[in-house]
């Protein structure tokens, strides 16, 4: 499912409601499709066709919100196909972040046990991985970071936990996520951080961008 070697098939353009055009690079999560979505969203920030009012990258897609009074769907789809066909310009080097984490979450021992690792062994492997911010979404400042290796793959919990506090460090499906507001979650809670990605009074209100390089550092 997460085969980085497999190139994504040509992206699919499709309407989402009557003010959205979604460019889907895959129908399931893969490293290649996520990189493609991030790269295309970055290009749209400088080359967005007229009538596009907002660009929203997600895990494997980019949604363009457009004003149908300013541009029709077919015209916009044509512009997007031209952009996709053109050579992508070089991406600038991603920003680097280190997020300090206290590994004290209620699910930490269970996750380590499922992976047949000691608590310390899991923490070490978790923090070795150079990860990438895959996207922001679901809740304000909530970021998905990936990908950990296959040896750290655990599914989500079957039950959803009532809201966990802002700063909770969540783990599942070869990803680490950072909750920036209190949210209910079906992910494993493995620790917490003092870092707050969402600051509504700052401009921009989030620190982490999709595509940024991120590493987690264990605080003892």
């Amino acid at each position, binding site marked *: 499912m997460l085969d980085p070697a497999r190139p994504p098939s040509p992206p699919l353009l*499709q*309407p*989402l*409601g*009557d*003010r*959205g055009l*979604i460019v*889907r690079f*895959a*129908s*399931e*999560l893969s490293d290649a499709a996520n990189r493609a979505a991030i790269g295309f969203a970055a290009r749209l920030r400088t080359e967005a066709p007229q009538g596009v*009012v*907002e*660009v*929203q*990258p*997600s*895990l*494997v*897609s980019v*949604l363009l*919100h457009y004003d*149908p*009074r300013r541009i*029709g*769907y077919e015209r916009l789809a044509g512009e997007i196909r031209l952009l996709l066909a053109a050579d992508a310009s070089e991406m600038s080097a991603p920003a680097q972040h280190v997020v300090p984490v206290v590994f004290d979450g209620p699910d930490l021992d269970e996750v380590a046990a499922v992976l047949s690792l000691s608590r310390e062994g899991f923490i070490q492997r978790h923090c070795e991985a150079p990860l990438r911010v895959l*996207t*922001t*979404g*679901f*809740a*304000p*400042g*909530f970021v998905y970071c990936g990908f950990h290796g296959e040896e750290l793959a655990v599914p989500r919990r079957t039950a959803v936990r009532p809201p966990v506090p802002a700063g909770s460090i969540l783990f599942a499906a070869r990803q680490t996520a950072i909750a*920036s*507001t209190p949210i209910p979650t079906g992910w494993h809670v493995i620790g917490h951080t003092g870092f707050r990605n*969402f600051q*509504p*009074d700052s401009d*921009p*209100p*989030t620190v982490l961008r*999709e595509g940024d390089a991120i590493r987690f550092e264990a605080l003892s």
Partner: protein
Amino acid sequence: MTELVIERAGPLCTVQDAGRFGALRHGVSASGPMDRAAFEWAASLLGRAGSAGIEFTMAGLDFVVGGGELAVAVEGGRFGLEVNGAPHPWPSRLLLKEGDRVRITPGPAGNYGYLRFDREMSLAPVMGSRATNSIVGLGGLEGRALRKGDRLAFGPPLDQEAATVTTAATPTDGPIRVLWGLHAELFPAALRERFATTEFVVSTRLDRMGARLQDPDRVFDTTLPLALVSDAIVPGDIQILGDGTPIVLLRDHQPIGGYPRIATIAGADLDRFVQLRPGARVRFEPVTLARAHAMLGQS
């Protein structure tokens, strides 16, 4: 300084402006009025209105004016309206003075009504907007629903233009028009056909985030694909939960989600949908994108 003192507020009564646009990539949906047309009609009754108004819910709202004069307009759904005990028609434009007491009471139709003012509310915008995101706790008054005792202060009155009253279009009955959704192809053709011909019922579980539907004919009783990759959500998306419950996602929706979405309500019909009360029967009629765009031009 003019202010408005809340004496009674129904649940989920919030400050709203047009919306907090451009923040989806930060994980923040736009919020804004559930019934956008009614919010704008209320402003048109005043000629020129402050960008922020109050959205109240079925139970209505009571308030007293303090400190000076205030022109207000009320619109959206059909509610009862009294000023100092005397009944007024709905919708209305009112010139209020200090001490005037307004009661907006439950009426025969609609879930949401709007109160607009001839001046701006003295509330600091958050991320460029005064709209309350009730789920996240952003904007409006302390990011929360209004309640008894709250005081909302206003700036000076705006220069008035002549009111160009655009009367509310008579809401059409009939089905709510939809476009096939992001995951429509995952639903078998026979199920899509049943979706488009069956009556659903608006449940009591509705809020600014979404409205759950009852599915008395069990259209969605089959096992659906789960664990889809999370993708962008737009207001009006109809998603199907794992237990088969359809939910229409609304203004305070999560920016992304992973449940399968069969259809999206056309922009021109979303205001009409949000005003359907619990117990109302609703049918969805698929239309083409061209038709949906033509409908936007007419509304």
